[in-house]
């Protein structure tokens, strides 16, 4: 055992981390309350009250998780992965029976969302594998198993279809690789073909030039990493092919298909569809100004016709009522949350702990970024909720499960 392990018993619990989490949750309940005020329902039926119940349940789960040994987590990896796949297959096969049921298993009492469960199961499994088998671009065989582990749930979720959740899996995998041996440059090389597609699909001059720069960077990186000739060739060729093929495929698409892609990438080009929500969201956030309109004052003017205001567009409620100051405060809280969470790595030399911790951080960061960027018109409209703030039972429980996992890693690692 190493000597510089933190022995201070008080750090078995990171009270600061817990405080930040609780603050964010409290904020969330208030925002949900404000977004749905005027429901005139019995208290136990209101959204804000239900959110409190979800959080309390989540806290109970998190506290329970603290007492789970790290070894048990490792042992649970493979079985939970298999169960997740079975559940995903189940919804895929029985999808379409009822409208919109492609993602849910309805147990009458509760609705299970297998893709949420799969996020956690996949995180533990990929971390378990990578902690024993680091990856390297110089030994391509090392990617076989992790990519296999990744591609199955990825495709199953993509088929639902739920692109944004599928991308969560991708992000977890990439960050996992990063902490299991790949360098930043390696990651760049892996992602570069996707960037090539994005840069070259449009006719814009600026993007075309950027694509040229990208290709140069790829060549430079390949040389710097001293990769095998074969792999270097493949990477460069893939990039060039991806670039040309994307513009060719693009030109082959029917105009209405092109329009659909464009609306996805730039919702504002369709003000009657997704753009309508983003337009309302931008107006709401912008009208909040620096200090905001004050708690409970926003919803009556603008947000009452954002249909998803208490779930996907909760950040707009925040922006309108608490202004720039409120938004910045929440972003700072999220930063503190991620900082305290990632510091768990330093308490334990087990690479499994590092991988699970950083994977969980990735899940949080991905949701935060994609959701906020959507509400301020920087990214496409997808259905990813904002951790701790958005209304929703399933996602609240997943968040609290991850928080419990993080607390467990710190507590068990310091015994």
């Amino acid at each position, binding site marked *: 055992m190493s000597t510089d392990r933190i022995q201070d018993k008080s750090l078995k619990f990171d009270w600061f981390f817990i405080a930040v989490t609780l603050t964010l949750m409290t904020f969330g309940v208030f925002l949900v309350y404000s977004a749905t005020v005027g429901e005139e329902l019995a208290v136990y039926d209101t959204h804000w009250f239900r959110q409190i119940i979800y959080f309390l349940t989540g806290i109970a789960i998190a506290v329970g998780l603290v007492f789970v040994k790290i070894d048990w987590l490792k042992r649970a990896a493979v079985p939970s992965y298999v169960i997740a796949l079975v559940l995903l297959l189940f919804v895929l096969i029985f999808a379409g029976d009822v409208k919109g049921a492609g993602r849910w298993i309805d147990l009458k009492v509760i609705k299970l969302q297998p893709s949420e469960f799969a996020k956690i199961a996949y995180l533990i499994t990929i971390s378990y594998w990578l902690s024993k088998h680091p990856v390297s671009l110089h030994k391509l065989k090392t990617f076989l198993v992790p990519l296999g582990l990744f591609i199955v749930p990825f495709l199953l979720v993509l088929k639902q279809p739920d692109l944004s959740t599928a991308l969560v899996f991708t992000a977890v995998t990439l960050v996992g690789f990063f902490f299991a041996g790949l360098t930043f440059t390696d990651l760049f090389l892996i992602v570069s073909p996707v960037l090539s597609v994005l840069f070259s699909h449009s006719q814009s001059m600026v993007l075309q030039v950027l694509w040229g720069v990208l290709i140069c960077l790829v060549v430079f990186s390949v040389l710097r990493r001293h990769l095998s000739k074969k792999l270097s060739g493949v990477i460069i060729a893939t990039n060039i092919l991806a670039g040309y093929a994307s513009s060719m495929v693009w030109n082959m698409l029917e105009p209405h298909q092109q329009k659909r892609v464009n609306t996805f990438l730039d919702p504002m080009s369709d003000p009657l569809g997704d753009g309508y929500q983003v337009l309302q969201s931008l107006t709401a956030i*912008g009208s909040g100004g*620096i200090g905001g309109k004050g708690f409970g004052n926003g919803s009556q003017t603008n947000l009452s016709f954002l249909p998803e205001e208490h779930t996907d567009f909760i950040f707009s409620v925040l922006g309108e009522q608490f202004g720039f100051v409120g938004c910045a405060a929440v972003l700072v809280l999220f930063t503190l949350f*991620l900082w305290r969470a990632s510091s768990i790595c330093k308490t334990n030399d087990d690479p499994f702990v590092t991988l699970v911790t950083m994977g969980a951080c990735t899940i949080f960061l991905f949701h935060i970024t994609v959701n906020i960027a959507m509400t301020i018109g*920087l990214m496409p409209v997808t259905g990813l909720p904002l951790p701790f703030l958005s209304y929703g039972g399933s996602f609240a429980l997943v968040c609290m499960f991850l928080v419990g996992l993080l607390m467990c890693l710190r507590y068990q690692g310091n015994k």
Partner: protein
Amino acid sequence: MYNDTSENEARVRRNWNVLIFLAGTVIVFTVILFKLFSLQYLHYEENFQRSENNRLRRIELIADRGYIYDRNGKVLVRNRPSYQIALQALEMPRKKAARDSIFKKLLNIRDAAGVRLFDSLSLDTAFQRIRWVRTRPVRILEDATMEQVAVIEEHSTELPGVSVIIESRREYPYGTLASHVLGYTSEISEEQLKLPEYESYSQGDRVGQKGLEQEYDKEFRGKNGLKLVEVNASGREVRTLTDVGGFIAPEPGLHMVSTIDLKLQKAAEAAIPDSAKGALVAIDPRNGEILAMVSSPRLDPNIFSLKRRERNKGWAHVALDSMRPLTNRAISGVYPPASIFKLVTSGAGLESGIISETKYYPKACTGGYQYGARYQRCWGVHGNLNVVHALRLSCDVYFYQAGLEIDMARINEFARRFGYGEQLLGVDIPGERAGWLPDSASFNRRNKRLGWRWARGLILNLSIGQGQMVTPLQQAVFIGSLATNKGVYRPHFMKELQDAEGNVVRRYEPEIIRPGTMKPETHRVLLNAMDSVVNHPGGTGKKGAVPGIRVGGKTGSGEWKKGQKTHAWFAAVAPLEDPQIAVAVIVEAGGGGGSVAAPIVHKVLMAFFGKEEEEQQ
């Protein structure tokens, strides 16, 4: 892999990586903060103004539903404007007290006669609903009169959130005429919304129910448009944001030219009184176009376009009626084919050579037939007959003997060839039911629970058409294709679909669904027999005759319950040398086919050949 010697190195690397991750987080959050700063500080004024004064609304523009015409271009179904008084949740004050005052004002509004416009119960329900239905208007008065609209407009300033919406509703100018064929429209039900075929529909949509309205709903409804408008503080439209792509024009639905012949349909409707239960199908056997279809009793589809209270009253009336006016008996009613099926028995016999025009059976009709221990009666005493005579007089004894000799397999094969049987004909309105041609296997299967077993004696009943199940549509299709001998065409109502400008978008291609052919000799004998049923002085169907036209037909009197009058059947086709129309009529418990059903067919054929006018002259 992470062994002791490299442990320290690995730890350093890990810490660096965590740092890179956190740095990435900070960069992403900074970008977000910049954008927020731009929105909330640099563009604050314009965003604030927009949120205060100009509010954007997305308004759905409902597409015009397509009309239905008869084959000569006469309108059978059209639209009429209908005024709805509705609550708009977004324009309503949020405070409970303010809402209550609007509620009270609405309750006190009276028309010139001093009658309240709204009743408190439905108004209360609507006020409950707008808490959830925020983006769509919630109707509080459907199909309002001009006077009621004027009263509301008068008070519009005191009633924020109460508005008048113009909708278009279906109108059926001929009332009950062809009501089972046309169907009706109503608001989509909760159950329908859950079905996969209604995936593209949303709550509040009006959707076709039954008949052509349901079958071709996707064609009729067109595509709704959308517009993005700016409204001022009191909820009135200021402008449409056309410049930024805020306007999608609705695409009107397609019009249908149907195969219905209005004149013939009217004659058919007049021939069957609403007090009788029955059905009539008139079809063009050369291509399957249905010229007229009646199911009696009828219902008036206009009741579904009325306001809720009256609609519910009308609905209760038709739904609870023991005569079951909602059923389209022409395609959903299954009956024994009765003596019309003797044409099948004859056809099968002639086709296989077991009987011929010159063959007589040893046992003459003496009023019955002894089979084993059983004595099967005939409806009369006919003596010794050949096939043409037997069909003309509809003698049972002849067919008892013929059926036993020909056997069920041949009879059923011939019947299926001309459209009978379990396979649907595939007519393009919903609700068609399958028929049934029993043989030993299917009879045992169906009656297993009752413990009945197939016996050869059953052939006696089946060969005279007692025991099978057919629909009136199948009877018309059968007799028509028997006369043409050119195949069975799929019966249909859709002739062509036209767009709003009148260009033909789709045309119905006639399709042969059963072979429907036989030997020329068989054809000749059967035509002869059908001719003599109507035109021979002793024929059972002579009341179906039309002067100057060679009509062929066959009567039927279906037994269905002991002690009750028989179902009266008559199926006819004309002119026999070049068939243009086939008609089948059933009057439930009407009595004999020749006396009750044949006169109805006579009236329809008179109208078809334009003889009515001559008669009156």
